[in-house]
């Protein structure tokens, strides 16, 4: 027994030198990986803000000119507007639809497993493949969207070729991939104690009342979680714009990451691209902090929960 206990102490660590070493040794992949592939590039990236650097030439010290240029660059402002527009509209709509679907699929319906699989399937379609397919779904002449709208007498719409329609088309496409959020909501709905809903019913609450007073408050942490993740992802959306429109028409789908990619790897402006990347990073951090601050007003956490 004492042998076991002392062995237990050995394993959970008694501060022996050899254990320190083992600890560091086992953690070394992360320590090295972090220093080489995360910390060093981050510092280097901050350093690059001060330089103009075409990879074919020597870096040139540029002071704050990158930052000044960024603030006035119409392409940068356009890309920021596009990403904001896309995020601010797509995320709430995604949340509403995925939550409603999760509610519906928590009802006693037949074939629930089939429905879940069907709504989940778009998630497993590789994003590149789905971009290639949706480019054609939106095709004015041979796409299935216009074909379907045609049944209701709608004339063909040039979705990805009209500056006013390209972003809405992208938002529409993003609604196809709400399976991930839906799965999280379904899991959460399954965890709501039946007793709480019954108690609300006894108090005279109807289905809608139970939803408002019991289900919604208990689901707010998950709604918040999905919102944060979806916001961060939407801000960084890149593949659809790169494949379907290459930023067009007239820069209507020039999103921030696409603009950064172009500056770095097509125009050879490494310093400028780093500046833009930091700007995006700060915006995402700011947005996330803001969401956390506002969340105190509406997200419900149980007392003593984790």
């Amino acid at each position, binding site marked *: 027994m004492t042998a076991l206990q002392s062995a237990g102490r050995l394993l959970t660590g008694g501060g022996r030198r050899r254990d320190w070493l083992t600890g560091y040794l086992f953690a070394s992949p992360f320590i090295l990986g972090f220093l080489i592939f995360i910390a060093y590039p981050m510092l280097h990236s901050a350093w690059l803000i001060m330089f103009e650097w075409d990879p074919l030439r020597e870096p040139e010290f540029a002071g704050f000119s990158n930052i000044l240029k960024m603030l006035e660059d119409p392409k940068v402002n356009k890309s920021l507007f596009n990403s904001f527009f896309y995020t601010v509209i797509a995320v709430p709509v995604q949340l509403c639809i995925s939550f409603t679907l999760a509610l519906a699929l928590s009802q*006693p319906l037949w074939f629930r497993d089939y429905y879940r699989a069907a709504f989940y399937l778009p998630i497993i379609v590789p994003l590149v493949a789905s971009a290639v397919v949706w480019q054609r779904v939106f095709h004015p002449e041979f796409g299935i969207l216009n074909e379907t709208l045609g049944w209701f007498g709608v004339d063909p719409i040039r979705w990805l070729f009209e500056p006013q329609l390209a972003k809405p088309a992208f938002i529409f496409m993003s609604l196809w991939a709400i399976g991930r959020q839906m799965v999280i909501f379904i899991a959460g709905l399954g965890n709501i104690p039946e007793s709480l809903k019954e108690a609300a019913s006894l108090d005279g609450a109807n289905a809608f009342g139970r939803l408002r007073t019991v289900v919604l408050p208990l689901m707010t942490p998950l709604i918040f979680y999905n919102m944060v993740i979806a916001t961060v992802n939407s801000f960084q959306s890149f593949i659809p714009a790169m494949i379907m429109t290459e930023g067009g028409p007239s820069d209507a789908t020039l999103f921030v990451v696409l603009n950064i990619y172009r500056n770095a790897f097509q125009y050879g402006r490494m310093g400028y691209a780093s500046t833009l990347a930091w700007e995006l990073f700060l915006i995402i951090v700011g947005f996330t902090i803001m969401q956390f601050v506002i969340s105190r007003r509406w997200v419900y956490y149980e007392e003593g929960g984790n």
Partner: protein
Amino acid sequence: MSVTQMPLEQPAAAQAPLAAKPRRKLKERLWLAALQILITVLSVTFLVPTLWMISSSLKVSTEVFAHPIVWIPRNPHWANYITAFTGHLPLGSFIWNTVKIVVFAVLGTLLSSSLVAYSFARIDWPGKNFWFGLLLGSMMLPDIVTLVPRFILFRTIGWYDTFYPLIVPYWGAVMALYVFLIRQFFMGIPGELEDAAYIDGASRLRTLTQILMPLSKPVMATVAVFALLQHYNDFLNPLIYLKTMDKFPLAVGIKMFNDFEVQRWEIVFAVSTIMLAPILVLFIFAQRFFVQGITMTGFGGR
């Protein structure tokens, strides 16, 4: 369209007083039936783009561009798949490159993440909390911030146009989320078994590989599935680091087909279907781990 409005109005019916219970049940059943129809229509709609992709990959080009749309090809034209492989784009290489990158990146992720997770879960060492904090912090960091300097780094050491930038970082446990998930799982396993093995003279590495890892199959499988999807779908990194077309993975290869075979929709669809197929098979056999992973990360990250 009228179908969609019906179930939205129905919940009001549930407001009927308790005395009218049988009637309420009937209304509830009506409501469920309407919901059933609505969800069926919606789920089919969600399937249509994928089904259209698969069916179009089997059409001849006159059917692709026919009015009205041909939903199901008259005769499945399997030759499109042969054309995809024998055209001037090296589809075979795209697939083989994907296999190589994914296998080594996932392997690295699993091994390094388990080692690091073990260190954080079971060993006490000075600075552990500091490094664990950094690990959690790096989860929030968007890849894009380090994109440019990482590119410069890899170009400087001569890794441009090789697979190394797509594989080596993942042997360094840079995907903090996976380390975190495995660590959480390890923490939930009681230490007695390891203690016993330790007394018998097993090293820490052996207790990890022969006791903890076999007990952690669910989380390992989840991490493996997620890492596999991540590297299989990765587009931006190979786009940046690879120059020679023969080295491209499928994700970038599809863009090549989309750019160079832009008029041949059936071929582009065939290649997209080829890219979806293995994931679909994996999904059918490992659906549990897909869903588990989502809910785990959902609650883990909160």
